[in-house]
């Protein structure tokens, strides 16, 4: 039983990281019907930006305030990168066939990935131990402080995003733009700024995800965005791409699924089973688990 609970804790931790990243895919898709392939590399970039902020700006201080400042500054920088990305790579192609935008997204992904390599070098960089290694043992199930932080902070962010989209005027504008951009424009919604807002939110959440990866695993490489991006993309599809609660659910499910397959079957097969799960869900429920209300995709 304690093995089961331990795998559950492991799965929820990686699941919440997947979910945070998946939100970026799903929000952009909801409004623009575009798979933003560069999102995974933005996640990787945020880990490197966070590391640079720590070493250069914070002067390697390891207080709680420093950690909060790293999160805020990294999210802010990635939000700026997100807006620039949208302006340069996606806005000029908004009227173009959808394939052009996808190719542009793949190009942007390569540019960001190689940009990271040029700026920070091809070596693996190592994140400092910003969160002290504190563990609690609950009858054989060990949970660490960093796991608790990741879980709680992810849940807080996801719930506030949900409330923002469902309960505020700005959220209503996002939902309206995702249903019909032209109609939204006729209602006086500035769709351009809504899309910019989507990129700001998606990129900042991705930035938090990237910092979690850095804090939890500590080793970051310039090409790691691809791996996490792929997982998050699958999570978004499993939950129903374009659906915000779906991305959260998909991320958590994928994390748990991965942990249990790796734990009970074999880590060799974890990736294969992930794709089998994706295929099964696409056959049984092509819209994803929560993707039924096609008209209200956000």
């Amino acid at each position: 039983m304690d093995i089961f609970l331990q795998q559950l804790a492991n799965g929820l931790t990686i699941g919440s990281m997947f979910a945070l990243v998946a939100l970026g895919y799903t929000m952009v898709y909801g409004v623009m019907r575009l798979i933003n392939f560069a999102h995974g590399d933005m996640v990787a970039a945020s880990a490197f930006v966070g590391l640079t902020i720590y070493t250069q700006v914070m002067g390697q201080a390891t207080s709680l305030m420093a950690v909060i400042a790293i999160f805020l500054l990294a999210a802010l920088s990635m939000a700026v990168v997100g807006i620039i990305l949208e302006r340069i790579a996606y806005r000029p192609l908004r009227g173009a066939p959808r394939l052009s935008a996808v190719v542009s997204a793949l190009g942007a992904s390569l540019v960001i990935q190689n940009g990271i390599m040029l700026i920070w070098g091809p070596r693996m960089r190592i994140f400092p131990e910003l969160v002290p290694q504190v563990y609690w043992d609950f009858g054989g199930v060990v949970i660490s402080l960093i796991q608790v932080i990741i879980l709680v902070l992810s849940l807080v962010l996801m719930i506030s995003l949900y409330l923002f989209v469902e309960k505020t005027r700005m959220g209503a504008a996002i939902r309206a733009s995702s249903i019909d951009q032209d109609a939204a424009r006729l209602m006086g919604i500035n769709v351009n700024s809504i899309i910019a807002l989507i990129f700001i939110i998606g990129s900042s959440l991705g930035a938090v995800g990237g910092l979690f990866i850095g804090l939890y695993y500590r080793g970051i490489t310039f090409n790691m965005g691809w791996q996490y991006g792929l997982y998050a993309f699958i999570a978004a599809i499993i939950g129903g791409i374009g659906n915000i609660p779906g991305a959260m659910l998909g991320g958590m499910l994928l994390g748990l699924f991965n942990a249990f397959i790796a734990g009970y079957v074999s880590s060799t097969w974890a990736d294969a089973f992930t794709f089998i799960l994706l295929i099964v869900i696409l056959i049984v429920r092509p819209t994803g688990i929560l993707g039924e209300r096609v008209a209200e995709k956000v």
Partner: protein
Amino acid sequence: MNRFIRTILVAVVVALLAVPALADTLKVGVQAPITGSYANEGQGIENGVRLLAEQINAKGGVMGKKIEVIACDDQGTAMAAAICAKDLVNKGVSMVIGSYTSTCAEAAQKTYFNAGVLQTSDGTADSLTEKGYWTFLRNSFPNSAEAEFVANYLVKVKKYKRIVVISDFSTYADGLANATQAAIKKLGGKVVSRDKIKADSQNFTPVLTNIKSKNPDAIFFAGYYSDGGQLRAQQKALGIKADFYGGDANDNPDFVKLAGSAAQGAFIINVPSPDVLPYDIAKTFIADYQKKYGEMPPSIWGLMNIDGMRAIIHAMEQNKSFDTKKAADYLHNMKKPLPGITGPITFAKDGNRNGGAYVVKRIKADGTYANEYVQ
């Protein structure tokens, strides 16, 4: 007809361009993971080769020829390694230094053999020398030697009762883990679990959770430092009390950085570190390296590769010929060992380097090593 003439013209021009280039320099290829997870080691190899080439060129080159270094990045993947091999052969190298991983060395071996290009790698997988390629010279010591040392240490010296062996799926790690498991069994020890992780996947807790339920007293990890450091950190995080032993490829400063405060008390098993090499030639070379690059060589592996390169050049000079077959014959039948950075160099007929002594190093609180056991 027009096309035929054009082809001939192009061929003539290429030949004219190529001939003086061939005559001018001795081309030395470097095949190493210059980017990717093992970039630290790959750059160490490239830096070392460039430094040695510079030093030899400053003394007038090899029999009047300057050394020209051509590097190719195999990224630590077999696919890129195969491409590198073709590329380096096409560029006319007569020897290739690298690669760091056995997987990459193995993927490139056949291409070099077919082209008669000498290859020297620190790859420790036994399979590298089992193919009968005269072009391959191993500048490190094979896995089987390490496996026997590890098994003897864990079973006979430390008397562990419940040992776990972990590897990734690479040629080197899987080979070392299997050989170690077999050696432990032969000595009457018990391997309670033989697990595999996916390199670079970062999340090893699912596998470690299973290992925890087996209640081991020692874990031997046969993979690379980039995973080993994280594995050690996650082992501690899960509260697994077993002693952690990392195989030779964990001997890299990044292991300690990745494991963070969990690094303390972990053990690394390898040949002696660069900073404790007792040979004068080692001290000079490492000092030159530090002067040029502002840091220590990342590990012993880059230096092993440098020794491989020195041996090949030594053989060419002894033969007074750039012929690669003759150089290989010389090295396979060396009577007098060549003093090397990592110890005296001689090769067995199958291309294995002779000798090899291992050390168990304990990681101290400040991240440096203390020798725990010396063979």
